[in-house]
């Protein structure tokens, strides 16, 4: 056991655990962040996904000692000031989930995907999401929701830059 310092969703925590413990168990059992879920423990399905330094990371195989100090975002940390992330909103608008157990992984993987490529093609979405599994098979609506969120994010950015542009001119 050892004291490990973590920064999750903008808050600092110290936990006393075996440093080899996968991050997932610390998030779920010590920090009560239960958005990430155990699906396989093998990094194959994506249900446990969190975002670390912009990357979608499978927390079930990531030893907690290796993420000390890094900013970790979980599903619970996506909303800003109570406003859902456009992906979460798109998930509601498209009524994506069936059972919903895997959707943490779907949303977090899509977030990392859109952060890197705000306007993915259909093929890029299929490829980028291919190893995030859903056994209710909600893939069709997930893909629609990603496209919907991409539009929301892009148009918000455009509005933002237009506003900034007009400020400069003024």
């Amino acid at each position: 056991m050892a004291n490990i310092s973590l920064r999750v969703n903008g808050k600092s925590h110290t936990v006393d655990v075996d440093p080899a413990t996968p991050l997932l168990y610390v998030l779920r059992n010590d920090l009560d962040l239960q958005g990430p879920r155990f699906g396989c423990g093998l990094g194959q399905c994506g249900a446990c996904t969190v975002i670390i330094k912009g990357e979608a990371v499978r927390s079930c195989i990531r030893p907690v000692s290796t993420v000390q100090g890094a900013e970790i975002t979980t599903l619970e940390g996506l909303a800003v000031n109570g406003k859902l992330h456009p992906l979460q909103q798109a998930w509601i608008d498209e009524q994506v989930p069936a059972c919903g157990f895997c959707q943490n992984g779907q949303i977090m993987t899509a977030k990392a995907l859109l952060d890197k490529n705000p306007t993915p093609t259909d093929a890029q979405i299929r490829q980028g999401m291919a190893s995030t599994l859903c056994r209710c098979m909600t893939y069709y609506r997930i893909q629609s929701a990603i496209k919907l969120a991409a539009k929301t994010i892009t148009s918000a950015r455009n509005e933002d830059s237009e506003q900034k542009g007009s400020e400069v001119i003024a």
Partner: protein
Amino acid sequence: MTTRRDFIKTSGFLVVGFSVAGVGNEIPLLAQGPGPYPDLDFRQLDSWIVIRQDNTATFFVGKTDLGQGTGTAFRQIMADELDMPYDSTSCVMGTTDVTVDQGGSGGSDALQTDGYPMRRVAAEARRVLLELAAARFGVPVGQLVVTDGVVSVAADPSKKVTYGELIGGKRFNVTLTGNNINATTGTAPLKDVQQFKVVGTSPQRYDIPPKVDGSLKWAVDAKVPGMVHARNVKPPFAGAKLVSIDESSVKGVPGFLKVVSRGNYVAVVCEREEQAIQAARQLKVNWQKPATAPFPTSENLFNFMRSATPTFSAMPTVVGNPDGALKGAAKVLEATYEIPFQGHTAIGPAHAMADPSNDQLTIYSNDMKSYGLRDGVAEFLKMPRDRVRVVWMEGPQAYGRTAADDAGFEAAFLAKELGRPVRVQWMRNEETAWDTKGPAFAVRVRGGLDAQGNLVAFEYDARSADFNHLGYNEHDTVLISQLMGNRREMPARGSAAAPSEMYAIPNRRMALHVVSLPLVWETPLRTGNLRDPNGPQATFASESFIDELAAAANADPVEFRMKLLQAAPDDDSGFKRARSIACIKAAVEAFKWDTRPSPKRAANGDVLTGRGIAYTYRSQTVVAQIAEVEVNRRTGRVWVKRLVCAHDCGLIINPEGLRRTIEAGLLYGLSRALHEEVSFDTEKVTSVDWVSSPTLTHADCPESIEVVLVNGDPNPKRSDLPHYGAGETMLKPTLAAIGNAVFDATGVRLRRVPFRNARVLAALKAAQV
């Protein structure tokens, strides 16, 4: 915290701790009474409906929602019968001490069967409220109108009162009648479906926002003070016997508490979850292999099934003279279809938490049949039933898996052994190898065509490897109980299934047999209710073979089926055939089907395209499906580019919710068609993770899925249009639709699922395509 039961007992309440939105962290708290937990009386209106002073209502129903929006649908139909706005209602499901025992979920019966008592009790509550209002205003009920939970006098709308003012905080004290829970009724009639306002619209599912913002507490999240973690240690070989355990091998694991073993069941318990995982990996156990192989290899399964002596054969169903008709036919076709074991392989493995506090046992579980779990655990642990309760919480895709709720029984057993709350969860390799399996089928079919290409004889002979198949949480069907040596006198024999017999074929024989593998108990090939338990298997064989017969008759596959559906109008299947025809027509129109026989003429290039249709009828729900495929003849990859599904389930409660359920169900059928198969050698199941047990991924998703909602009732405007089930039928014909499309594209008939690349490539090469 006031429990629901306390509330029901006393007249006043304000403390029932859940929001009108209907789900959330509060539901488990609702069930924290000290016990015991006797069944609610379904003949009391108060067991079903609570109306508060603020004019909101909560419905308590004995069903569970597997992610198909049934909770939302229950609110819709009950809100409509009660005349309340949807947003003022909430729904509590499946927790055994606060909801009546409607059996939980299964068989897609939530609306088809259980929707009716729900409607009747809501209508009865409305009747009682109108009587109360009539007494208050001194006018006959006939002079009252009710809108959105507000009753007013028609002649003087200033005279009005809300339901909440009439009854809020008080009991109805109305006794219902009915010999069983499905027959529960008051005296109020049901509304005509034309009067519904909420039914037929698509309110968003209330469970989705907390599922996407991370706030929902699921069964995997259940946690109480003092809880510890357990992991199982499974036998490494099917049928292995426990010889000895070396406990010293885990004594050094931090947080180690106990090794628990009984019979061949072994588990370790530790303070923390990762410690339990480590201890389970580290525990040294000496197992003895069984003297004989528990089963054949998965490669040899169908040979084994065909040569085995059946353990059960149903009396064949015979119509006309199939032998004579086959003898006299101008053309006779014969084929064999094979469907392997397919696993449930839920995205989250089995899990549960049990708390033995107060000398009761509370199990926090995602069990779709929570009442069966309660009954089964009580029997297993020899406890009075009213000292066991199951708090139902959401979980990963169940679709039949939790009808043998292994983890629920294990948590209950371990909690009693330890005397403290225990959470248990299976690891991925355990779940994939040891979960319940959909039975394997080997089907022999024969068909005879006359000189004009009419189908005159059809023979269907199915063998299924299916045993111990009960699926209602009977304790001796659950793995821990079997590992402990519990046996029923005879293994449940399971069943093979016949296809739906909608086609008018004058001479036919349906023969059904069950065969057993050598290992019957404690087996990782234990069968269970995999979504639409035998439907995809039977329909793959029958609807593929109908396609073969159409091709042999040089007929268009749609026209061939239509001819069979229009014949023999004098029998009692007219209603079903009319709806079948409407559905097939709707699919054909949406797809823009090109009428011609299959296969298509040979094309050049690596990618061949084709289309195929399949149709089914299941418990009054009709589905016709058309798949458009691309088959890559270099790689063997089958990609379903487009799926069209016409679907008739009678009265539609929530069209947008239904569309999504159908879309996902189609893709699940696609996954079973293309990928899913349980592999095993003669000692163990070798499907243990997502590499050795592949599933459909985003990359396989069709470019387009079109769902056409059909009302093909011969009297479509009938005021009692029934609401049939919609949870399973959509996936039943998918395997055949795809196989038929592959035949159309390539001229090669695939008679064995799944259509994995290597298998398809080999078939194409053998046919020199």
